[in-house]
């Protein structure tokens, strides 16, 4: 099984630095998601691994050998495209068998393989249909089946669920995960949707402006974001970001933003900045009755979110503070609530470049 190493990959288009010195190692059998907003370079990176784009600099190494000089057709990769790209003039059977047919395999053997794959993906009933008669989910299955037939050494998926509607997405995601488990091969998949990444991947690589900002298991990235960008981007509910200032007194460091005053107990040395952005996830904002609160907010809206409630609190800052609380807590509009932030789950970022200051 292959071990994929990307070494110092760079790519420029004119003045635009699409990829800037990417170093990455992907282990055998990993299900690895590359996540980032549009224009972060993730699809370019995938196309470099596939061989459709030549990097300006750097190496793609598979099993210790550089494959830079190989054409896509020589790399033995399975790839699923965002636009799916089934051969529209062929029926499903011929779409799936294409990869073997062009290598002049025996007809019976090709047919046997097609049947095997169709069974595995539960698309036997579709074999004689033309692609334009398939639903989005069916087309995606056929596209996966088409790549399976050549028995590729690893798989690249470019926004595989981008064209599907929300409830199909979950189903296909589970399907991909299952496929990954049974094939035990390396899957690299690109998505701009961090929810997909959170749900399926063993590992997420977050890209921003052609660089890797963070790399790790989804849970770790969620709990410990490297900078403000990751904190805001990664997570179903966006992280609260409150701009404010740092007030240093003799024995303690305080963050003041709007009606919030947070005592940052873990800070021993004085910080180098006076301005900072405080980040805290909605589930770490508590609405309490204890006296040592961090501030008071006026309730502006309450929304139901699953079995919990989302409470929007006006704290006289640029943004309201959002708290994810138990459904039993259902404050009235305009009610003033005491707020407490979980201190160990609170982050401080530099407002200019988003770098993390604290903890």
């Amino acid at each position: 099984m292959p071990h994929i190493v990307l070494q110092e990959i760079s790519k420029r288009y004119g003045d635009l630095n699409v990829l800037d010195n990417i170093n990455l190692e992907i282990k055998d059998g990993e299900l690895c998601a590359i996540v980032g907003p549009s224009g972060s370079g993730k699809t370019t990176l995938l196309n470099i691994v596939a061989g459709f784009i030549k990097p300006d600099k750097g190496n793609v190494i598979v099993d210790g050998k550089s494959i830079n000089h190989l054409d896509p057709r020589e790399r033995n990769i399975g790839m699923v495209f965002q636009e799916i790209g089934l051969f529209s003039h062929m029926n499903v059977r011929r779409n799936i068998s294409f990869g073997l047919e062009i290598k002049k395999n025996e007809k019976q053997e090709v047919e046997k393989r097609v049947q095997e794959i169709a069974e595995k993906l539960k698309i036997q009933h579709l074999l004689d249909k033309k692609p334009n008669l398939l639903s989005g989910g069916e087309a995606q299955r056929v596209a996966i089946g088409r790549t399976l037939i050549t028995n590729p050494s690893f798989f690249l998926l470019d926004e595989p669920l981008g064209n599907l509607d929300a409830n199909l997405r979950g189903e296909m995601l589970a399907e991909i995960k299952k496929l990954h488990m049974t094939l035990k091969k390396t899957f690299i998949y690109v998505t701009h949707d961090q929810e997909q990444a959170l749900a399926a991947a063993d590992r997420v690589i977050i890209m921003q402006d052609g660089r890797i900002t963070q790399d790790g298991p989804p849970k770790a990235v969620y709990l410990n974001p490297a900078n403000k960008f990751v904190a805001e981007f990664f997570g179903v509910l966006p992280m609260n970001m409150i701009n404010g200032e740092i007030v240093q007194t003799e024995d303690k460091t305080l963050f003041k933003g709007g009606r919030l005053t947070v005592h940052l107990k873990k800070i021993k040395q004085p910080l180098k900045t006076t301005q900072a952005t405080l980040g805290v996830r909605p589930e770490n904002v508590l609405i309490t009755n204890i006296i040592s609160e961090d501030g008071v907010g006026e309730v502006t809206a309450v929304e139901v979110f699953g079995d919990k409630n989302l409470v929007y609190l006006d704290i006289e800052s640029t943004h309201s503070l959002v708290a994810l609380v138990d459904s039993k807590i259902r404050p009235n509009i305009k009610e003033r609530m005491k707020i407490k932030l979980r201190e160990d789950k609170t982050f401080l970022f530099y407002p200019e470049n988003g770098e993390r200051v604290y903890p």
Partner: protein
Amino acid sequence: MTNSAGRKSLSSNVLMILPVQFIMLFLIIIPTILVIWFSVINFQPTFGKPFWESQFVGLDNYAKILSNIEFINAVARTISVSLMCLAVEFLLGLVIASILIGNIYGKKFLFPLLIIPLMIAPIVIGNNFWLMFSANGPVNQIVGLILNIEFRVSWFTHPQFALIPIILSEIWHWYPLTFLILFSGFAGLSISEIRAAEILGASEWQIFWRIKFPKLKGVIAIALVIRMMEALKVFDVIYLLTQGGPGTLTESISFYLFKHGFTYSKISFISAGAWIILFICLVGFSLALKSVLFKER
């Protein structure tokens, strides 16, 4: 509400297109009826009788023109020359389109340069080719230089070679059409499909024959039909270069009809010829298109 409004606008729609239909009446319908009429009477302006007083002769004109060996030769010549031009233009267009569809250097410069011939008036092209192929022209000189002999062919009066300048000028004039149509066909192909085939291991050749060609069949058929229609009408270059000569060896259908109609005033005779050509074209093109375009649907 919408129904009544729809009905009202229907009558105003008819009113709107009426003037154009009226023009069409004079441009197409009346001439067509006249040509049918001419083809079944014995009318020549030189007889001094108006056509409505001319004698009805039934299919006599058709029989006459079909037994005229010069006409049959002109038809066969036009079709074979057209097919030859078509084949070369198609291949040329295909090669240039597949080169230019890639990211090659100088594409922005080459593209307009390559479609210039299409924008030049046929009379200019005819004159250019006349200059190039004249006895003292550059073609003879260059061939002479390359072969290092005294080379002097009078192309336009040579019984075997007279068609060559005509064919070459036709190809040069019209290859941009097939090139443009094929280029737009290539540009419309889905990149994911081509990439999918590539990553499955298909060679360039296999991608062309198994993916691009089947998907472009319709576009190719249309390109060929448009060009064939144009080729069958070939007239200007022949008029300029050879006047159909030597003898009648380079006469095309159009030139033949022109000569017999406008020089010999045999209006009824060429009207019958025109209908025969129309019939051949209708049958030929509908069979060609049917076999390619509508087969799979």
